[in-house]
């Protein structure tokens, strides 16, 4: 669906590039989670994917078009919800009338449905809303445009406590096989249940790029009250009860993903985690060939 092809990018000519020969493939019908430390280049990647920045070399391809050209064909299929955005001082009905005309798949009925997820109504004036409410309205509009690719930068920042759980329902309700959502966030607990695919970035490198199913097939997330840490444990992190453990899932056990644990483990023991995927895949291939 979208391909980031050998992109090299730096904000200033003389500085170290944020991305060097970076490539990434985004597929249809998935909810991606883009994780990384501060300054890892998450927002920069989103800007490159929407044509808001020009790579020094390489390009971002959307169905045969270079997104940097900012052509209507790509712009109407990619919607960015940035961390920092502005809404005009008009009524929401007016805003919809003025902006929906640019998005051929926009649905007003869906917009109303999405607003209801956040306990909001269409008869509101945008200048009377708080920042969190504005975010809810903007995200509802973004989802109602039904663009093929929806990019969200820190979408749960500024949302109240009910807003965060409403957000999860809202996102899953707007998903189908034709659409893709990419969420860049630090608030992993807000989104861990809804992600289909995890991408972890660091130092212009993709440390992890795996589907959630694949991660759970290869890795086991557990919590132990025993102070003794097993020798085959890939990574451990203290919890209230004892320790969170990340192990290789050799016995195909079921577990629930812990994104914080995974993220820290990948940053600390990148090679170990990567090996975990490759070794098990090799074993499975050998088993299949037999």
């Amino acid at each position, binding site marked *: 669906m979208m391909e980031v092809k050998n992109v090299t990018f730096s904000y200033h000519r003389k500085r170290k590039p944020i991305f060097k020969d970076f490539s990434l493939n985004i597929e249809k019908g998935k909810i991606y989670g883009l994780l990384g430390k501060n300054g890892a280049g998450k927002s920069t990647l989103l800007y490159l994917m929407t044509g808001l920045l020009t790579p020094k070399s390489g390009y971002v391809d959307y169905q045969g078009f270079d997104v940097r050209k900012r052509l209507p064909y790509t712009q109407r299929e990619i919607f960015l919800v940035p961390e920092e955005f502005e809404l005009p001082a008009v009524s929401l009905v007016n805003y919809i009338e003025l902006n929906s005309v*640019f998005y051929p798949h926009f649905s007003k009925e869906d917009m109303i449905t999405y607003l209801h997820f956040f306990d909001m109504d269409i008869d509101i004036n945008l200048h009377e809303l708080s920042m969190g409410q504005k975010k809810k309205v903007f995200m509802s509009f973004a989802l109602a445009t039904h663009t093929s690719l929806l990019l969200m930068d820190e979408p749960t920042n500024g949302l109240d406590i009910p807003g965060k759980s409403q957000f999860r329902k809202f996102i899953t309700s707007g998903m189908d096989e034709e659409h893709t959502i990419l969420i860049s966030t630090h608030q992993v607990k807000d989104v861990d249940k809804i992600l289909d695919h995890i991408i972890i970035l660091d130092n212009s490198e993709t440390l992890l790029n795996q589907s959630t199913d694949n991660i759970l097939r290869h890795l086991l997330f557990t919590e132990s009250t025993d102070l003794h840490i097993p020798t085959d444990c890939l990574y451990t992190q203290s919890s209230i009860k004892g320790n969170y453990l990340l192990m290789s899932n050799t016995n195909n056990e079921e577990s629930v993903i812990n994104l914080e644990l995974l993220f820290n483990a990948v940053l600390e023991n990148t090679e170990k985690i990567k090996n975990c995927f490759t070794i098990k895949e090799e074993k499975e291939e050998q088993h299949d060939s037999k």
Partner: protein
Amino acid sequence: MTANNNFSISRFSYLIRKELVEHWKAHTLQLVAIFAGLLIFSLWTSYTIYSDFANHLTYTDSYYTYCTLHHSDPQWAMQGRLFYIALFAFGCYSASLITNDLRRVGKRISVLTTPVTPLENWLSRWTIYTILFLIMFLITFIVSDYLRVLIYKLLYPSLSNILLPCGFHQCHDFFIKVPTRIFNFLFLYMFVQSFYVMGSSFFPRQSFLKTTFIGFLMGAAFVFIVVYITSPYSIDPNTAILNISLAVFAIIMWALAYYRFKDIEIIDRY
């Protein structure tokens, strides 16, 4: 459904509507400021003239008779100057606002990700801040002029014979005495306005001041070259060539501003 990646009239009109409605407060405020400025200045400058006439000061009597006979308003000369100066001042200021909203990141993202071509995006702004501004300025000037007449008719009913708005026929002398004058003015206005449009593309912040400063430096350099270096050869400028040059330069500057706009990114990197 494939999108038209070339110029689309419908998208262009939607964009103009979006820009006008979403920024209606700012546009209205600017219009009110122009109207207030024109009205206050014309009322202020005409007050002395009309009060002298109303008080039958001896030196005004013959002029009063002349104005009555020729259906002429003694304020017209000043109104003509006001028209030219205000159009230049407000026109340049309006031109410097063409990319004003791109100063803020949030707004910049919204502008650059709207599904329109860069040309449609640029042309919609140019239309609003150049063409629509001219139309609104003319309307504002006419309304303020009629108000001047109305107010002084109430204050000095005895002068109603000479209190006349700037109509095309009556004040012909002050505005287009020589047919070419309006063209000279128009081309000069295009040139200066396009300079501010270009300035806005290069200086997103404090564009009006920075462009004025650069324009002043360039003007000073031009005068220095013409007066001190080429004056011994006595230049005899051909008006037609000068007008064409101004128009060509205006088009080049608008085009440069467009290409600069096309290259705008989320942040100004270099």
